[in-house]
C-alpha cells in the first residue's frame, strides 16, 4: 500500500514536471504568438487537451510502476562475488502472475479507449450551427487559398475569423481541398491538424475563445518548400471581422497615379497566376492580390510585407523561399519601381 502511495506521488511529480516544462516553454514564447499544443484556445483544442492530460496521467502511472520494477530488479538482483559459480533458483513462470499482468492492462485499455472514443465523437461529429462561418481552404504548393463562399471573399495565407463567444457560438467550419499534393492544416492552439488531400475533401472546425494572431504551418510534407508554407489566423472581434469582410469585398483600388505599374502587371506574366478583382488579371495558380496590402506577410509568411521584401520577392523569389513556384520576373528597375508602387496601393 505504501509502495502504491509512493508511485502515485512520483507520477504526480512526473506530470507536474511535464506540465512545468511545457509551461516554461510557453512563457518563453509569451512575447510572440505560440504554437504550444498545451495552450488550447478553442473548444476542439480544449477537448484534445483534456484527453491528453488524462492519457498522460495514466501513462505516467504505468511508467513509474514499471520503471520502479526494472530499477528494483537491477539493484536487488545484481550478482556479486559471493554468488560466483552458483546458479539462482530456476523459475519457469507463474500462471497467476501472467494473468495479473494481462488483465490489468486490458482494464487500462478499456478505460483509455472509452475516454478517447468520447473525445473523437465530440470533436469530429459536432453539428454545424446556423451561426457558423463557412470557409474553404485550398492547399497549393506552397501557399494557402481561403475562400468565404457566403461573403464572396478570396484571400491567401492569412485567415481572418471571428472570435466565438461560448454563450453565442460563431464557430468557423473549414472545407479542406488541395490543388496539387497533400498538405495539412495545423494551428496547434485552435485545433488538431487535418490533411488537405486532392480528390478527398475534408472538414474541420474551430471556435477561438479569444482574439489575436495564431500561428501554424503546413504539417504534411508537400514538396520542396514545405517548411515555409506558414499559416496565420487572425481572430477578430465581431466588429473588426465585419469591417475586414467589408473591405475585402471591395474591388481593387484604382489609382491613376500608379497606372504605369498597373500596365506592367497586366502586360507581363503576373496575370498568368495572380488575380486582381476589377482588372484583366484573373490567374488562379498564385495568391489573389486584390487586397495584398491588407496582409502582414508575403510568400505564405516567409517574409514581412514591406517594400524591400516585395521588390526582392518579385525579382528573386529564391532569396526568400528557394524552390517556390513564383518565377523571378527580371524586370527593369523602372518597371519594378512602378509595379511595386502599384501593388502598394492594393489595400
Amino acid at each position, binding site marked *: 500500500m505504501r509502495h502504491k502511495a509512493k508511485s502515485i506521488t512520483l507520477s504526480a511529480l512526473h506530470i507536474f514536471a511535464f506540465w512545468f*516544462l*511545457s509551461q516554461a*516553454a510557453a512563457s518563453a*514564447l509569451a512575447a510572440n504568438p*505560440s*504554437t*504550444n*499544443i498545451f495552450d488550447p484556445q478553442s473548444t476542439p483544442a480544449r*477537448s*484534445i487537451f483534456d*484527453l*491528453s492530460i488524462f*492519457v498522460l496521467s495514466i*501513462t505516467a502511472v*504505468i*511508467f513509474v510502476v*514499471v*520503471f520502479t520494477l*526494472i530499477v528494483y530488479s537491477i539493484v536487488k*538482483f545484481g550478482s556479486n562475488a559471493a554468488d560466483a559459480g552458483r*546458479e*539462482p533458483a530456476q*523459475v*519457469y*513462470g507463474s500462471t497467476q*502472475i*501472467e494473468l495479473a*499482468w494481462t488483465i490489468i*492492462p486490458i482494464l487500462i*485499455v478499456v478505460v*483509455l*479507449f472509452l475516454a*478517447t472514443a468520447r473525445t*473523437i465523437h465530440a*470533436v*469530429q*461529429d459536432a453539428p454545424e450551427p446556423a451561426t457558423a462561418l463557412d470557409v474553404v481552404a485550398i492547399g497549393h504548393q506552397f501557399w494557402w487559398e481561403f475562400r468565404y463562399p457566403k461573403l464572396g471573399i478570396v484571400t491567401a495565407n492569412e485567415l481572418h475569423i471571428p472570435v466565438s463567444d461560448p454563450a453565442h457560438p460563431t464557430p468557423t467550419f473549414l472545407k*479542406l481541398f488541395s490543388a*496539387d499534393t*497533400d498538405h*495539412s492544416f*495545423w494551428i496547434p492552439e485552435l*485545433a*488538431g*491538424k487535418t490533411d488537405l*488531400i486532392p*480528390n*478527398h475533401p*475534408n*472538414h474541420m472546425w474551430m471556435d477561438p475563445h479569444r482574439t489575436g494572431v495564431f*500561428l501554424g*504551418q503546413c*504539417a*504534411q*510534407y508537400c*514538396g520542396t518548400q*514545405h*517548411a*515555409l508554407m506558414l499559416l496565420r489566423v487572425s481572430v477578430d472581434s465581431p466588429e473588426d471581422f465585419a469591417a475586414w469582410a467589408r473591405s475585402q469585398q471591395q474591388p481593387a483600388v484604382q489609382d491613376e497615379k500608379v497606372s504605369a505599374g498597373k500596365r506592367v502587371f497586366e502586360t507581363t506574366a503576373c496575370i498568368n497566376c495572380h488575380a486582381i478583382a476589377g482588372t484583366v488579371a484573373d490567374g488562379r495558380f498564385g495568391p489573389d492580390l486584390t487586397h495584398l496590402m491588407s496582409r502582414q506577410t508575403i510568400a505564405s509568411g516567409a517574409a514581412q510585407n514591406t517594400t524591400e521584401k516585395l521588390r526582392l520577392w518579385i525579382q528573386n523569389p529564391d532569396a526568400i523561399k528557394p*524552390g517556390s513556384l513564383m518565377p523571378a520576373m527580371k524586370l527593369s528597375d523602372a518597371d519594378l519601381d512602378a509595379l511595386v508602387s502599384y501593388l502598394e496601393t492594393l489595400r
Partner: protein
Amino acid sequence: MSSDAMAVPNVQVDGRPWVETLHEWLTTVDHKRLGILYIVYALFFLVVGGIEAAVLRIQLMRPENDFVSPQVFNRMFTMHGTTMIFFVAMPVLFGFANYLVPLMIGARDMAFPRLNAFSFWLTALGGILLYFSFLGGNGLYGAGTAPDVGWWAYAPLTARAFSPGHSSDYWTIALLVSGFGSIGTAINIIATILCMRCPGMTLNRMPLLAWLNMTMSGMVLIALTPLSAAQIMLLIDRYLGGHFFDTQAGGSAVMWMHFFWIFGHPEVYILIIPCFAFMSEIVPVFSRKPIFGYPVMVGATVCIAFVSMSVWAHHMFTVGMNSYVNSFFTISSMVVGIPTGIKIFNWIGTMWGGRIQFKTPMLFCIGFLFQFLIAGLTGIMLAAAPFDWQLSLSYFVVAHFHYVIVGGILFALFGAFYYWYPKITGRMMSETLGKWHFWLFVIGFHMTFDVMHFPGLLGMPRRIYTYQPDRGWGTMNLIITIGAFIQGIAILVFVWNLIVSYWKGARAGNDPWDAWTLEWSVSSPPPVYNFASIPVVESRRPLWDLKHPEDPDSLYE
C-alpha cells in the same frame, strides 16, 4: 572497415590468392557466410544513413540555417529513412536470423541455400539501385538526383507531374527488388524452422529466437506483398498511363496511404520482433535463469503479429476518416500494447530473483527495457486519435519512432553484436570499449530523443528544413544535434571495437557466456555445416541439461 574484419578470415593462413577468397564469398550459399554478408552490408549502410542524419541535424541546429538547400535536405531525409529501414534494419536482422536459426535448431544449413543467396543479392542490388539514383536520377530531365518524396512517398508527390526524372523510379524499383529478396528470405526461414529441426526439438522446445523469427517471417509474407503491389501500380501510373494514384485523373492519394501503411505498420513489428528474440536469449543467460513464461512469450508474439495487421490506419488519423474508423484504429492500436507489455513484464520476471551479470550485451538489453517502455507509452498517446491530431506529423512522432528504432531495435541489436560476436569470429569484443560505447550511446541517445519530443509539443512539424527564430525551437534543436554527434562518436567506438577485437580480442572458446542453446555447443566460429553429428535435445535448454545432469530442464517442461 568491419567488412574486412569479419568477412575475410584466415587469408594468410590458407595462403590462397585473394581473388579466390572473394570468389568464394560472392558465390557462397552457406547460411553463416550469407548472414555475415547481410550484417556487413547493413553496417555499411548504417554509416551512410548516419551521415545523412548528421546532415539533417547540422541543418536544423539553429533557426534559418543555410548549411544545405531545401532540395538537398528533402533528399537527405528521404534517403535516411529509406536506407535505415530497408537497407540497415531489415538486412541486419535477416543476417542474424540467417546465421543463428540453423545453429539454434540443430540444422546444417537453411532449407533453400540457393534461394538464400539469391535473396541476399536481390537486397544488395536494391540498395545499390537506390544509391545509383544520385547518378541516374536526373534522367534526361535534369530534374534532381536522389528521391525527395519522403520514405512514405505519398501520392501524388510521386506522380510524373511532381516528380519528373527518375529519382522516384529508383526508389520504387529499389524497394520492389529488395522486397522480393525479403520475401525469399522469409520463406526460407519458415521452411527451415518447420522442416529442419533436430530430433527432439519440438515446436514447444524451440529457442524463442526461432519462434520469433518464424513469426516475423510470416508477417513479412503478408506485409511486403501490398507494398510490392503498390510499387508496381506506381510504375504503371508513371509509365503505362495508369491512374491508381494520379489524383489529377481521378486516382486516389488515400489508397496509396492504405497500401503503404498496411505494410508500414506491420514493418515496425517485423523489425522489433527479432529484437524481442535477442532480448529473450540474452536476458536469461545474463540473469542465470530460464525465460519467464515461455508459452506466454510465444503466445504474446503471435498475438502481436495478428493484431499488428489491423492497426495501420493509426498513421492516418489526420487524413479525415470518420469517427467510427478512428475509434476502431484507436482500440486496435491500444490492444497491441497489451501483449507487448506482457513481454516487458516477462523479461522483468526473468531478471527477478536471478543473479544479473552486467556484461555489455546485458547493459544494452537493460537500456532496451527502459527505452522501449517509454516508446510504448508515447505510442499509447499517439494511439489516442484526438491526441494524435496534435502529435501526428510533428517532431513528437519523430522522437517516438526513433525511440522505438534506436532506443529499442538498435540497442537490442548492439546487445546481439556483443553477445554473438565471439561465436561468429572466435574472439571476444572488448568489454572496456563496449562500456564506453554503451554509456556514450545512452547519453547521446537521451540528449537527442528525449529532447526531441518537446519541439513537437510546441508545434514543430517534421520534414521542415528551416524554422523561424521566434518559435522557440532553437535551443532544443541545438541540444538534439549535439546528442546526435555523441551517438556518432559512440558508433565509431563500436566499429573500432568490431575491428580491433577481431585481431586483439581474447579467444572466446565454444561457450564464453556459459549459455544454454545449441550454437554454443560447437566451435567458434562454427565449422562448415555446423554439426558433425546432429544433436538430440530433450528440453528448451539442451546445454543446461548437459551441464546439470542432476537437475535437467526436461524434468520440468
